[in-house]
């Protein structure tokens, strides 16, 4: 079965640079979620989109922005990168047949390293 696709899988950036992470949800899934996971920590919710509109917002820094496109893929844009942004970034997708309690399926993640 098709899974969530994330690209790139690894990304190395310098401080103050910009990064763009991409997420392709499972076909027919209309909701995308972004999470940040630091070493030894649980995933922290950043932001979500439903039918191309922002549906919820978590602890996403103002330096970050995201959007969902007409083909349902999503991009997380991160500017003025800081050392503390180094983490695993996961995208998850779900199909809204039960509303907010839909099961989220996670991608393999993008490991971002800021030097």
């Amino acid at each position: 079965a098709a899974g969530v696709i994330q690209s790139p899988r690894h990304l190395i950036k310098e401080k103050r640079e910009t990064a763009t992470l991409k997420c392709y949800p499972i076909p027919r899934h209309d909701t995308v979620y972004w999470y940040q996971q630091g070493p030894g920590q649980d995933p922290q919710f950043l932001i979500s989109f439903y039918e191309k509109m922002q549906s919820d917002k978590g602890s996403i820094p103002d330096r970050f922005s995201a959007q969902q496109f007409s083909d349902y893929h999503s991009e997380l844009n991160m500017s003025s990168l800081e050392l503390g942004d180094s983490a695993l970034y996961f995208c998850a997708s779900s199909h809204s047949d039960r509303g907010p309690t839909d099961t989220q399926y996670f991608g393999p993640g993008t490991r971002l390293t800021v030097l």
Partner: protein
Amino acid sequence: EDQVTQSPEALRLQEGESSSLNCSYTVSGLRGLFWYRQDPGKGPEFLFTLYSAGEEKEKERLKATLTKKESFLHITAPKPEDSATYLCAVVSGTYKYIFGTGTRLKVLA
């Protein structure tokens, strides 16, 4: 404030030694509880969804149960390949996933 606590933080088992992982929650109106398995450096892999107290789900050596205050993930006769971090997440009235900090399971051959 909504809270999810998992215990133990870490667990070492011998192969074949059954045990249970706990996920306790304090949320305003549980809408769903989810179990995931996560291997190092990889995305969480979905295991189970539970929606109401009394519900049980099974898959191979794993069985998840739910009460009004907690969920258990029972592992029967575990194998080394079951070694991973097991995450529990709940959805309450805020509609966001609230993750616990996970239980790191190590199964020794």
